[in-house]
């Protein structure tokens, strides 16, 4: 498989001409040929009229390689195009490679919009190939026509509509380069049916040119920290007594997790991560303070309140992290920010020191420069250890109902941070983020910025296809599971050993939590207790041979063990306490000092629970 290159647009080319150069092919065949050359071993997608030629080309491509299965491009068919998109995203998030999905025009394309936007918001590299009506019919309200270019443009990193068939080959190659370069993101290629059917000469090389972008990518890839800039950074560090690193998803997508923990250990600086940054630092590490933010660990948020120097790496002060910007890290007189995206520097917080470039190289530069740097932060580290001890995560361990935290704590004990975990969106997502040990990057795959319910199951399928031998667990909610329930059948169709764990609280728990806090317990639209769905029967009907429901708390551990050990697709529904709430919580638009910690986590400055009143009216 080809090495993926992260920042540069142009891969080094062996100057030999391509063995297929000069061969006549259809547009559809060229698409598949370029996919193969980009290292694509799996594509996800659903066929239909306007993409039929390309599906035929995949069939023929694989038929030609009957005896060389490893060269084939495996085609995974979901129940819905949204599923295909999240599978491609799960594949990309788990592996770091570009995920690919292929859909038809009109409804196939509109169903793909949600995963495209989700990938954009979380910086995930995917390429979507969309069939489109023939060029002559575009703009005439033809059958299954949708204005893909128009509606995808503001949602994707880039969109191509292939008008000149001669440019198709170069367009596909360029799409991969754009998806994976700089800050990664989704690229859409809209290919009219007649362009797929067109026949022409394959060149085997060539890309479209984007002068400004290429120049910027080149500058980014060369962007190193000067001695002077390193010096300035260490001056700040020398002035600091309480430094704190805040690591985000950029550390993971920038393959800089190793450098981050080396850096943190070398200078003895504790690390909090954003939701997207979980896995950038082993959560079981002494220096790890786990997640910060709205539902961050109490001790992580206290550390943010106490630090005097915040070093933000590949994170962007989203409103779930800094709900009240002016009160975020109030004692941090100094703020450093490293990001691959210049537009993020100073967007929310004004910074003292910044660098635009790949985090990995930046951290290496800093470590080289700081070889002789010594500063004793032991008093601060002691303080942080105290915070961790005194404000540890906790929940009601005495109930007869099963607490979701306990399920995840127990699961964590079984898998020991070695699984790839995906999630839906809601309370279960936050509990998974809080209670699972995550030891490696690309191990917690979650829809962070868009927070799209229904992400978990298809993402798990994609991750499992990227890593057939690893343990992949989807920790899902009953509401989120319903969103892409059709993909349960996809799991068994391809006999993927995905473990699907549904924490069933009979409804949209996260919404209910907000309704309890801010809407006087009026559970408008979020109560599902009268719903008839039998998840276990559903899973059985879809071919799961392990499909169980757990209601008995005393059988939790053994059931989870059997579930994880099962050699194939497995489904487990755990009926949890529907009243359980996610704590800590920093209300929307509020500062960390207003964080509530619930009845079981010790808070530092107790705020009466549930007495938070209405959130500021413009926050959400």
């Amino acid at each position, binding site marked *: 498989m080809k090495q993926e290159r992260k920042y540069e647009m142009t891969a080094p080319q062996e100057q030999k001409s391509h063995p297929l150069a000069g061969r006549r092919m259809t547009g559809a065949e060229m698409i598949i040929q370029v996919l193969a050359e980009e290292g694509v071993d799996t594509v996800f997608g659903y066929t239909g009229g306007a993409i039929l030629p390309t599906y035929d080309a995949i069939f023929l491509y694989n038929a030609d390689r009957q005896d060389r299965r490893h060269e084939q491009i495996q085609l995974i068919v979901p129940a819905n195009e949204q599923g295909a998109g999240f599978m491609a995203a799960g594949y990309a998030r788990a592996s770091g490679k570009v995920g690919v999905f292929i859909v038809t025009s009109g409804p196939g394309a509109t169903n793909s919009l949600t995963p495209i936007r989700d990938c954009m918001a979380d910086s995930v590299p995917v390429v979507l190939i969309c069939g489109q009506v023939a060029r002559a019919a575009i703009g005439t309200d033809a059958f299954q026509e949708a204005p893909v*270019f*128009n509606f995808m*443009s*503001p949602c994707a*990193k*880039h*969109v191509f*509509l292939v008008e000149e068939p001669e440019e198709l080959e170069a367009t596909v190659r360029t799409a991969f380069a*754009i998806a994976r370069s700089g*800050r990664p993101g989704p690229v859409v290629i809209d290919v009219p049916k007649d362009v797929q059917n067109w026949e022409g000469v394959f060149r085997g090389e060539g890309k479209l040119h*984007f*002068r*400004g*972008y290429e*120049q*910027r990518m080149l500058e980014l890839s060369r962007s190193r920290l000067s001695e002077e800039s390193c010096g300035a950074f260490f001056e700040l560090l020398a002035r600091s007594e309480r430094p704190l690193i805040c690591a985000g998803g950029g550390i993971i997508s920038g393959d800089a997790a190793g450098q981050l923990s080396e850096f943190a250990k070398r200078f003895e600086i504790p690390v909090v991560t954003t939701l997207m940054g979980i896995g950038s630092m082993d959560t079981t590490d002494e220096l790890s303070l786990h997640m910060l933010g709205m539902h961050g660990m109490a001790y992580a948020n206290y550390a943010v309140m106490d630090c005097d120097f915040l070093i933000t790496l590949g994170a962007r002060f989203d409103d779930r992290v800094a709900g009240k910007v002016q009160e975020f890290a109030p004692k941090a007189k100094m703020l450093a920010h490293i990001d691959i*995206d*210049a*537009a993020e520097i100073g*967007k929310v917080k004004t910074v003292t020191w910044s660098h635009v470039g790949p985090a990995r190289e930046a951290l290496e530069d800093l470590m080289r420069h700081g070889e002789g740097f010594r500063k004793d932060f032991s008093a601060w580290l002691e303080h942080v250890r105290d915070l961790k001890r005194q404000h540890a995560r906790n929940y009601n361990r005495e109930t007869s109902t099963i607490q979701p935290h306990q399920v995840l704590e127990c699961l964590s004990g079984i898998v020991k941070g070695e699984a790839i975990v995906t999630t839906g969106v809601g309370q279960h997502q936050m509990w998974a983020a809080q209670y699972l040990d995550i030891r490696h990057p690309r191990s917690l795959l979650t829809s962070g910025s868009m927070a799209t319910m229904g992400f978990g199951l298809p993402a798990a399928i994609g991750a499992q296809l990227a890593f057939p031998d690893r343990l992949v667990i989807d920790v899902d909610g009953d509401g989120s599971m319903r969103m892409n329930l059709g993909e349960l059948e996809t799991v068994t169709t391809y006999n993927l050993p995905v473990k699907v764990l549904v924490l069933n609280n009979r409804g949209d728990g996260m919404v209910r939590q907000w309704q309890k806090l801010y809407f006087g317990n009026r559970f408008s639209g979020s109560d599902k207790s009268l719903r008839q769905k039998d998840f276990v029967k559903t899973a059985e009907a879809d071919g799961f041979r392990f499909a169980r429901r757990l209601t008995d708390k005393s059988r939790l551990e053994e059931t989870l063990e059997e579930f994880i050990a099962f050699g194939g697709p497995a489904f487990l529904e755990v009926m949890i306490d529907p009243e359980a709430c996610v704590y800590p919580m920093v209300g929307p638009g509020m500062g960390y000092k207003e964080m509530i910690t619930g009845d079981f986590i010790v808070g530092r400055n107790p705020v009466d629970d549930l007495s938070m009143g209405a959130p500021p009216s413009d926050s959400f």
Partner: protein
Amino acid sequence: MSTINPPASQSNSQNTRTLSILVENKFGVLSRITGLFSARAYNIESLTVARTSDPSLSRITMVVRCEPLLAQQILRQVEKLPDTVEAVDLTESNCVERELVLVRVKAPEEKRTTLLTEAEIFRARVVTATPDNYVFEVTGDSGKVEAFLDVVRPYGIDEMVRTGKVALHRNLSAKNGDTEPA
């Protein structure tokens, strides 16, 4: 063109920004860029787009009413688009800016002489005339154009059309395609 502009900021109200964006000359680029403004509900006051001396590039000149910092932020986002070559805020920079206006003014026989005398001050040209009207063409920075319109307004403006502002840096811009001397 011989008239030299005063610094642009003089003729601008504080929150009006003149942005100059050099892009690949491809379809869809303009809507993508204007979309970044409309997504934040910022109205674009004026917009001009045309090819540069390098026909594969286009220059967009845009006047937007927004805070300087916000303009900076949107420009950084514009600069992320693969099609963008360069995006700058020219408002406080050393640039020349011009706008062209065609305006049809009521010109009854008895007022023609004074009207033409006043037009002369602004070097406005009569491009066509009818027994009742003159159509003037005037070029200049916003200040001059506005002043001219103030002068002819009392005569009665029938109709008018403005191109919107174009602006060019006096020195050679770093990355652009306009390689002719300023």
